[in-house]
């Protein structure tokens, strides 16, 4: 499927700030699941600099702005040809060993409830395959946390989301990583875009899910919020231990920290597959 993405992040400040530094993880890696046809990230008015591909295969670039600034905008535009691989991340070049993704960060740390959720989900599955166990965990998280926007915050932890019983994709991903860790399965947080309307019309589409390490297959995506595995409607942007570590943009404002207004606009639309476009 050919997906066209436009992702605009705009920060507005009530009072001008002295400067901004951002670490941007905004480039989807080219792999068997997704061919990047075009991709451009524009940091309007800023200076881009140091860039590198990290051990997880994600490109990271530095962008800085000198103030005074009352607004900055980062714009992403691109086209990706996706292939459904039943959630399996294929031919993705990375060097981080799966065992490094067992770390209990603040957002994915487990408590007794998460441990119990993991244990109950896997009850009687001692001899089941890792893939079946991962599916069971994902189902358990979908059931335990109801999708409900506006109830949780960016810094909400897996523990808080489970105890509240409601959340958004970020919370489902955190809880799934947490219960996978309890079962000693490496798991990580993935950011990306989702084309979710049947007719391919543009819509809000920023998304996140989890990947669990299945030895026979490699990394497999699980979208507990949508009770499915990523398919051709998904574009994978980057990964990390948790939402903070995987964040597409990590930024710091210099100078006084005035009220900040964040606007994110993400539009994914399905292009006509097979149609060749001139870049």
């Amino acid at each position, binding site marked *: 499927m050919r997906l066209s993405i436009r992702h605009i992040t705009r920060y507005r400040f009530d009072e001008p700030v002295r*400067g901004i*530094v*951002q*670490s941007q993880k905004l480039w989807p890696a080219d792999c068997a699941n997704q061919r990047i046809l075009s991709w451009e990230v524009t940091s309007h008015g800023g*200076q881009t*600099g*140091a*860039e*590198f*591909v*990290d*051990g*997880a295969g994600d490109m*990271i*670039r*530095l962008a*800085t702005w*000198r103030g005074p600034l009352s607004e900055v905008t980062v714009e992403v535009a691109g086209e990706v040809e996706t292939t459904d691989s039943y959630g399996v991340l294929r031919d993705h070049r990375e*060097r*981080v*060993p799966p*065992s*490094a993704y*067992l*770390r209990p960060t603040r957002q994915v740390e487990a408590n007794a409830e998460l441990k119990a959720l993991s244990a109950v989900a896997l009850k009687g599955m001692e001899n089941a395959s890792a893939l079946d166990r991962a599916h069971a965990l994902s189902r358990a998280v979908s059931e335990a946390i109801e999708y409900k926007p506006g109830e949780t915050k960016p810094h909400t932890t897996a523990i808080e989301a489970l105890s509240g019983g409601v959340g958004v994709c970020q919370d489902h991903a955190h809880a799934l990583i947490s219960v996978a860790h309890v079962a000693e399965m490496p798991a990580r947080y993935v950011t990306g875009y989702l084309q979710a309307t049947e007719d391919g019309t543009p819509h809000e589409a920023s998304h996140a899910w989890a990947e669990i390490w299945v030895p026979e297959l490699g990394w497999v995506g699980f979208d507990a919020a949508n009770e499915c595995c990523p398919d051709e409607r998904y574009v994978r942007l980057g990964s990390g*231990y948790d939402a*903070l570590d995987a964040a597409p943009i*990590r*930024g*710091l404002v210099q100078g006084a920290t005035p009220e900040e207004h964040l606007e994110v606009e993400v539009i994914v639309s399905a292009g006509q597959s097979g149609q060749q476009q001139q870049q």
Partner: protein
Amino acid sequence: MSATKPAIFNEMLNGEQVRSAYQNLEKWYRSMPAELRSLKQSEAEALFRRVGITFAVYGEGGDPERLIPFDMFPRVMTAEEWRKLDRGVRQRAAALNAFLADVYDRREIIRAGKIPEHLVTNNEAFEKAAIGFRPPRGVFSHIVGVDLVRTGPDQFYVLEDNCRTPSGVSYMLQNREIMMRMFPQLFMENRIRPVDGYAGLLKKTLASVAPKKCQGEPNIVILTPGHFNSAYYEHSFLADLMGVELVEGQDLFVEGDFVWMKTTEGPKKVDVIYRRIDDAFIDPLCFRPDSMLGVPGLMSVYRSGGVTICSAPGAGVADDKAIYTFVPEMIRFYLGEEPILENVPTWQCAKPDDCKYVLENLSELVVKEVHGSGGYGMLVGPKSDKSTIESFAAKIRKNPDNYIAQPTLALSACPTFVEEGIAPRHVDLRPYCLVGETIELVPGGLTRVALTEGSLVVNSSQGGGVKDTWVLAE
């Protein structure tokens, strides 16, 4: 391990006989009137206070303004003894760096089955952000502090390695400085190898790992958490000696491909950062987002080759107490050599058999936390009463992975000034090995001494002091 008390090696005396290395010192001591001694002792204290060196060594905590007691009786090593230590420490530093370069790259040592994977990749000090990046010359730990103890004429053991930012070298330098000022005669009568080349060697080492993008003479800075840090004195002292800027995070910024230092003449590019800040705090955009001490964006510049950070982020995974056990294996694996310096035999409570042995023999062992430092949270079996041992046993049972145990070593004793004259007190030694284009160490190190009679804990937070450390010329 037997329960019989092993003989303690006396560094100065062989029975009644004074060892040759100490003969001049012994005369010096005997000819010193008691009044002169106490006069000199207060003079030394005044000098230490004047230079402002009051910090606790190795981040041990405690009162940062407290003066660490200086003992005027030097610790002496012969040229021959030093030769072995020098070779042994350099060998260890080479292997530790080879290990770091390997675990952040191909992980051959894990593939070869020499070290369990989870001990490395699941280690708190293992940095995902360091994977797949080879720092200049492949060096991760540029200053390796190796803590040694001696138990016999030729018997040295490594207690632990310090691969991040080992502190205390300013004591090594100041102890010498003050001894030379107070007792110049001693330095004419004895052929003592100088240590004052340390700063020059450190600067040369740091310059040798400048990034490829750096042309011309590299601009080196020391990054300190600030004057509230207990080792701030050392940071400013080393910056002074090397003639480089001492900066805090707020003095630096990133833009484009580089790190810049704010100066009155405008921004100046920085090539090498000797940081005295923990990994977690150096870049809020990569590690702890609440850190005010670091430089936002620093890791991006580092990873794209615009600046060198010393020690490299992630270097700490090599000096973890659980990894320590495997250092002899690293030496064989990477260097194809036999270890020159021995490890202390170590039981890992994470292993059920080891744990069982440890719990059965607690009264004879020293038990430490895997991530602990500074002599806190440890049990010295022979010095503990029954209830202390029992409550410690409960802690081990609850979280065995968190503990390792070692036999109580008979640390060597060195003559030390006490009320009645001199008496043997237990000592250890930390030499500072510099790793860059070459691997070198100045002849000496920091000797810590347990001032309390019979005490084996040399940490300054637990009543330890320091001594000048002499290496005699050939």
